[in-house]
């Protein structure tokens, strides 16, 4: 085998020699024969013998295939416009799908770049610090258990004093890198030694991408410091390239040891909060232990460990999940969106296939004669199909390569459409899986769009094709039927995509239009952490709040300012158990949100008081304690009654009731964070009477809130330059972030919908133009015998509509099903809103008419004399 291959390769290189040898050999034979037995039968066909022998010496099939490829390429080169159009279409379809696949790959398929990722198991849901410590000591199912969490609200500062606002830090138990099996690329990772509870080390391991971004990959970074909440941490190592933590989608920039958390994090020592499950826990299964065995043991261990820990929360059931691809928080959040967008991309690809098939088919008509000639010359049917498939393969290969090349950029652009996540770190690097996907989809594409034209072309009867003139034939009626079917199919698919984009756009519109109950247009809001700047007790914090309100109110353009513990769109951190008047005995839900605010909160945020009054000067320390509640709260506890004048008491954590608080006013319902939320049950207290911490500062202006941002920040820092401030930011911008998912879906599906619409237009245009050209003679005769141009025009447009309408009807049915599927993501619009279906149908009808109009106009202007003389 190998020998024969070597000989053949040699023959390939010395083709001339081979020819000569063959010739000589046979010539000698002939000569001898003529000399010895001239009377005998003639030698036979020398050329044929030579050919047979030559074939033995060559890679005949391969060489033949190569020749066919060359031929296919020649054919494609001959009509560059057509080829470029098809390649562009395919690049679009394959690119969109490859982009989606790269996201799916990054989030759902790719494993963490760690040692044996398939032995890693996530122990969901979260764990409190103490419980994690106890469990870690007691468990036997894992060779190691790591705990990790985010450093939220930590201010990160470089040595230069520059705030690194986007830096994302993680807290990790000392064995984190050991359990994962990640070694430092330079320096070292931290270990249990650095994470001793008695004296943890202020060390930090930084991520590779952060290292390249922030320090330009400078190896002298080791030993330098980064300040977390003002405390220095020494950089001791850099992770290997590609490792960005345990949560796909959210890379970490640095890690500090778990027991450094009280220093690094302004939230205080989370260990003292035994009920706060903030740690994500992952374990590496011990050799021979299955995930089921481990689960059984974990449940038992956790139960036992809990007995040593005081817990107020209900124990949440624990379940184990493979963590080979990391924790799945982000996967869950983005999962639905990626699925929907991937489905959309697949539909775009289908449309592209249909479109390309249409183009090839229409062109197939023009090539009918060429193919018939080839067949007549003895080209076998199989060979013909093969050469057409090869052309398809070349086209798909070109389109696929371009698509793959642009896919990562597209995927990144898609993620950028979603502002709230800030930076999404996904490894979109090109890998083998991507490549396989690209090749697979290109092959599939080639087969999908070129098989139909190939079969059709090869089954053409030779004779009529040769005889008929190329101009006046529309091909067999079946071809027209196929073309019409393809156009209808394409229209139907476009309807689905356009409808989906309409759904999301309308939903987003509704979300924006929701009246949250407060003024969204004129407010900027800043997050302030007073405790970090040294304001420890309640009174000091409230004094700071008062100073801030005074100072900010003096800023030109500001009409009023207020501080509050909780802020609209930002969330609330205080939920209390209360006893409402008249509800002392019943066990109905007694949890409400409590929001202590400064006196002019309602004026500042523009929340109208609908009953009773807001806070006033009379509500001072020592005067009766008062509260303002939302309508939702009033409705819930005092249905049909006047809530004003009712009292409630707030129970402390130990269940001891405090002093009664009187409700003095009711404000409009507000949607506190997300416009989708139900109106919140919240009671507002006056910070005057209940001095305490605040987290947010709201500022109201008559003008554009954006104009105030820097002045307000300046004023805050003037009050105390040590304050850690986030923002300020106009509320409208905050809302954008909250609606990020809807925005992404709306924008991306809008983009795909637009692409679908353009493709549909293109498809109709292509087919109608083809039919018009094919029927030129017919139209010329019609015009010659007295048809008005307008009649011809109308005839063609009607023809196009007749083709498109079944497609639109089918598409609406498909869109109805798609609407069902995405209904849960919609807001203010159902998945079968007739208005949307009508709008989509109208859009497609309009597109069809537009696309048909141009060729129709051309047909109506045919000069019968010129057209008929041509034939």
């Amino acid at each position, binding site marked *: 085998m190998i*020998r*024969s291959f070597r*000989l*053949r390769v040699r023959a390939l290189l010395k083709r001339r020699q081979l020819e000569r*040898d063959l010739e*000589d*050999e*046979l*010539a*000698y*034979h002939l*000569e*001898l*024969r003529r000399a*010895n037995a001239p009377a005998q039968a003639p*030698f*036979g*066909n020398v050329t*044929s*013998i030579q050919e*047979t*022998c030559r074939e*033995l*010496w060559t890679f005949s099939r391969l060489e033949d295939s190569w020749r066919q490829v060359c031929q296919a390429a020649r054919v494609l080169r001959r009509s560059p416009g057509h080829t470029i159009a098809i390649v562009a279409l395919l690049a679009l379809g394959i690119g969109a799908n490859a982009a989606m696949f790269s996201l799916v790959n990054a989030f759902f398929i790719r494993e963490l770049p760690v040692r044996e990722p398939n032995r890693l198991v996530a122990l969901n849901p979260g764990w409190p610090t103490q419980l994690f410590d106890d469990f870690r000591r007691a468990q036997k199912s894992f060779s190691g258990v790591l705990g990790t969490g985010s450093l939220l609200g930590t201010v990160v500062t470089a040595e230069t004093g520059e705030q690194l606002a986007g830096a994302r830090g993680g807290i990790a138990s000392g064995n984190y890198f050991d359990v994962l099996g990640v070694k430092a690329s330079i320096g070292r990772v931290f270990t249990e030694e650095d994470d001793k509870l008695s004296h943890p080390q202020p060390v930090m391991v930084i991520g590779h991408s952060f290292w390249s971004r922030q320090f330009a990959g400078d190896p002298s970074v080791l030993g330098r410091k980064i300040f977390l909440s003002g405390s220095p941490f020494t950089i001791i190592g850099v992770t290997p390239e590609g490792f960005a933590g345990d949560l796909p989608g959210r890379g970490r920039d640095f890690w500090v040891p778990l027991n450094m958390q009280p220093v690094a994090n302004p939230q205080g020592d989370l260990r003292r909060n035994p009920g706060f499950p903030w740690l994500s826990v992952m374990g590496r299964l011990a050799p021979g232990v299955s995930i089921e065995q481990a689960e059984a043991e974990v449940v038992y261990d956790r139960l036992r460990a809990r007995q040593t820990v005081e817990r107020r929360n209900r124990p949440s059931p624990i379940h184990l999940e493979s963590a080979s691809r990391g924790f799945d928080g982000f996967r869950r959040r983005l999962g639905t969106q990626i699925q929907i967008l991937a489905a959309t991309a697949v539909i775009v690809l289908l449309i592209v296939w249909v479109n390309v098939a249409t183009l090839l088919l229409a062109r197939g008509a023009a090539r009918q004669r060429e193919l018939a000639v080839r067949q007549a010359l003895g080209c076998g049917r199989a060979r013909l199909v093969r050469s057409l498939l090869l052309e398809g393969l070349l086209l798909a290969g070109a389109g696929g390569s371009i698509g793959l090349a642009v896919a990562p950029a597209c995927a990144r652009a898609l993620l950028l459409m979603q502002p709230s996540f800030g930076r999404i770190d996904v490894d979109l690097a090109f890998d083998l899986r991507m490549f396989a996907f690209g090749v697979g989809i290109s092959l599939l594409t080639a087969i999908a769009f070129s098989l139909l034209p190939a079969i059709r072309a090869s089954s053409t009867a030779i004779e009529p094709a040769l005889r008929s003139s190329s101009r006046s034939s529309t091909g067999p009626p079946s071809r027209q039927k196929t073309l019409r079917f393809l156009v209808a199919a394409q229209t139907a698919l476009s309807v689905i995509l356009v409808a989906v984009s309409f759904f999301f756009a309308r939903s987003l519109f509704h979300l924006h239009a929701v009246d949250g109950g407060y003024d969204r247009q004129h407010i900027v809001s800043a997050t302030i952490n007073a405790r970090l700047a040294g304001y420890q007790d309640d009174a000091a914090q409230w004094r700071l709040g008062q100073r801030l309100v005074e100072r900010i109110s003096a800023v030109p353009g500001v009409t009023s300012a207020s501080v509050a513990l909780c802020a609209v769109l930002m969330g609330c951190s205080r939920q209390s158990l209360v006893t409402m008047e008249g509800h002392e005995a019943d066990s109905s839900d007694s949890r409400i949100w409590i929001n202590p605010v400064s006196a002019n909160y309602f004026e500042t945020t523009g929340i109208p008081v609908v009953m009773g009054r807001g806070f006033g000067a009379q509500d001072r320390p020592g005067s009766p304690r008062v509260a303002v509640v939302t309508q939702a709260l009033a409705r819930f506890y005092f249905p049909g009654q006047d809530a004003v004048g009712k009292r409630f008491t707030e129970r402390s954590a130990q269940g001891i009731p405090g002093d009664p608080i009187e409700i003095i006013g009711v404000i409009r319902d507000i949607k506190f964070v997300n416009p989708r939320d139900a109106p919140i049950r919240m009671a507002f207290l006056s910070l005057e009477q209940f001095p305490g911490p605040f987290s947010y500062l709201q500022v109201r202006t008559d003008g554009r809130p954006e104009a105030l941002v820097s002045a307000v920040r300046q004023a805050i820092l003037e009050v105390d330059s040590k304050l850690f401030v986030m923002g300020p930011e106009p509320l409208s911008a905050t809302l954008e972030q909250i609606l990020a998912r809807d925005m992404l879906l709306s924008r991306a599906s809008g983009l795909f919908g637009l692409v679908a619409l353009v493709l549909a237009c293109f498809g109709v245009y292509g087919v109608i133009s083809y039919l018009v050209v094919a029927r030129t003679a017919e139209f010329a005769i019609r015009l010659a015998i007295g048809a008005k141009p307008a009649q011809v025009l109308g005839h063609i447009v009607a023809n196009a509509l007749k083709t498109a309408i079944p497609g639109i009807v089918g598409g609406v049915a498909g869109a109805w099903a798609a609407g069902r599927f995405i209904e849960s993501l919609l807001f203010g619009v159902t998945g079968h809103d007739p208005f949307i279906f009508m709008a989509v149908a109208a859009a497609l009808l309009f597109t069809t008419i537009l696309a048909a109009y141009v060729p129709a106009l051309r047909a109506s202007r045919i000069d019968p004399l010129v057209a008929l003389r041509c034939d």
Partner: protein
Amino acid sequence: MLILKSLSRGKRHGYAIAEWIHDVSEEALRVEEGALYPALHRLELRGMLDPEWGLSETNRRVKFYRLTPAGRKCLAAEREHWGRLSAGVMRILESA
């Protein structure tokens, strides 16, 4: 097999092989050129034959073929196979 056999006593060229088979079989067998040369080339590619170029009296280039050890082994195997086959066929024919 016949070609291999014809070369078992040394190198020969194509015409000689055909003639030898024709003569030895007492004119019962004639190998057509159309089959001979492709067969020769196939055997060469499979490593059974070694080609060697020489010159004839008429000063023409002549391609001689020679058995390789592999070819010899193949001949033995083929011969045995054929022996068994023909013996079997004979037995069937004579059984009646």
